[in-house]
């Protein structure tokens, strides 16, 4: 970006580590017994981010589509797993379905943003493609897992209502449609809420980053507007894809709900 950025030295990082020590002291003095977790979390933060830094630098230097493809596929897989893990229930191919949905939605949105709007050359240029895909995934994930959770919970807990419609001669689509609609709606609420308050409650990470990197705040704002719209698009498409694929897996050709295909998983406590 601009030369205005002040480079950090290893010494700066060591001083930064003192900030975590403060958190550790709080834990000790209050008897929270979080010291070990905090230490582990800090070490993981350092290692993971350094690793990401090196991988990114390597792929930026590589300037080859294969590098971008490999890394983005990995990101998509991790995001797919996370989407399923955050919901309280799953079905057999739910990770695969989430990966598929995220891939299609992710690449389409990415292409629209980098090729059509930003106009980076080539459209998959890693400097744009990777952070933008990261933002798409990181932000649409929440909505998608909410959608998935809503849908599976309903089909599991209220299968009697679905069965009642089917017994009255509803097709599987007619019986599932209100549920799918509600789950897509649930999944889209978070992004709409954050669009409502963006900039008022907190400054988005990317915008903050651009400002620190010395860019004109108005320039940063324009990017952020595109990012919000892009996340909204990705979330809505992601929720639709998730609901549709789930519907295809949970109903069979005989127009019946196969509730036994849903299994409960221990919630990791991200949502709810």
């Amino acid at each position, binding site marked *: 970006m601009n030369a205005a950025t002040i480079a950090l030295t290893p010494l700066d990082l060591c001083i930064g580590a003192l900030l975590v020590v403060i958190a550790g002291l709080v834990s000790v003095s209050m008897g929270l017994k979080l010291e070990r977790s905090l230490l582990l979390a800090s070490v993981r933060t350092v290692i993971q981010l350094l690793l990401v830094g090196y991988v990114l630098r390597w792929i930026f230097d590589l300037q080859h589509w294969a590098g971008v493809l490999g890394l983005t596929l990995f990101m998509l897989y991790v995001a797919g797993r996370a989407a399923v893990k955050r919901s309280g229930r799953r079905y057999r191919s739910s990770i695969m379905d989430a990966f598929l949905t995220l891939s299609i939605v992710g690449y389409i949105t990415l292409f629209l943003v980098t090729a059509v709007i930003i106009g980076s050359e080539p459209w998959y240029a890693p400097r744009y493609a990777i952070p933008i895909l990261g933002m798409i995934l990181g932000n649409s994930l929440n909505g998608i897992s909410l959608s998935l959770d809503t849908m599976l919970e309903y089909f599991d807990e*209220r299968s*009697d*209502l679905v*069965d*009642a*419609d*089917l*017994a*009255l*001669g*509803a*097709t599987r689509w*007619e019986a599932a449609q209100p549920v799918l609609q509600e789950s897509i709606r649930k999944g889209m609420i978070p992004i709409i809420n954050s669009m409502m308050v963006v900039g008022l409650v907190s400054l988005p990470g990317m915008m903050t980053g651009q400002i620190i990197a010395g860019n004109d705040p108005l320039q940063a704002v324009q990017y952020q507007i595109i990012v919000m719209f892009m996340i909204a698009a990705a979330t809505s498409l992601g929720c639709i894809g998730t609901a549709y694929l789930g519907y295809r897996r949970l109903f069979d050709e*005989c*127009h*019946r*709900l196969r509730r*036994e295909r849903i299994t409960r998983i221990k919630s990791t406590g991200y949502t709810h």
Partner: protein
Amino acid sequence: MVVVEAQETKVPAHHLTGSQLTISAGNRPLLQGLDFHVTTGEIIGLWGVSGCGKSTLLRSIAGLQPLLKGSIELDTQIPDAIGWPTYRQMVRYIMQRPAFSSETVEHHLTHMFSFDSVTMTYGEARSTALSLMARAGLSTDQLHEKASNLSEGEQQRFNLIRGLLTEPCFLLLDEPTSSLDPESAEAVEAIILDGAARDQWGGLWVSHDRVQLERVCDRVIELAHFCLGGNT
């Protein structure tokens, strides 16, 4: 057999046949090798103790869960050929404890008419609905109540009536009077038997109450003969 009185519009008889049905709950087989044959005008009783798989059997015949073995034919056609939604219009499964959302009773009544497999409109069925409701002791004021607020007995009667509106030719009745007081039970029995006497429908009537089945059915099949043991 019920003797059919001269009717202006005599519906041609339909047949519902189940052959060598084996059903299960999860992986546990419940009933094995069950055959039945019912025509319009007939009510056949399926008698069994609770937990022997009576409800599962009706659910399976309605195709809401897979049969482990065996086949079902409606007028020599399998449901796959008829199309399951259409089949379920003709073979109406009446649940013992029907599920209702918090929408109004009227919504539940009209919603069904938006389904592709329903050929008539609510307008055409409305007068039948109101007269059946009166017969079953339900008031029209209840149309505007939340369906989930109705008592169990009211829900059971309402569900039956709704199921009859689209002119099914068979009823799969799962303990249809289980939540009813004697008076409403009698009214419901009469509604079902009248339709059968007029050849509007035939039925499979599941119950644990042998006395009732002997009273309302043409034949009674004892499910114990097909039971694979193991109670729920």
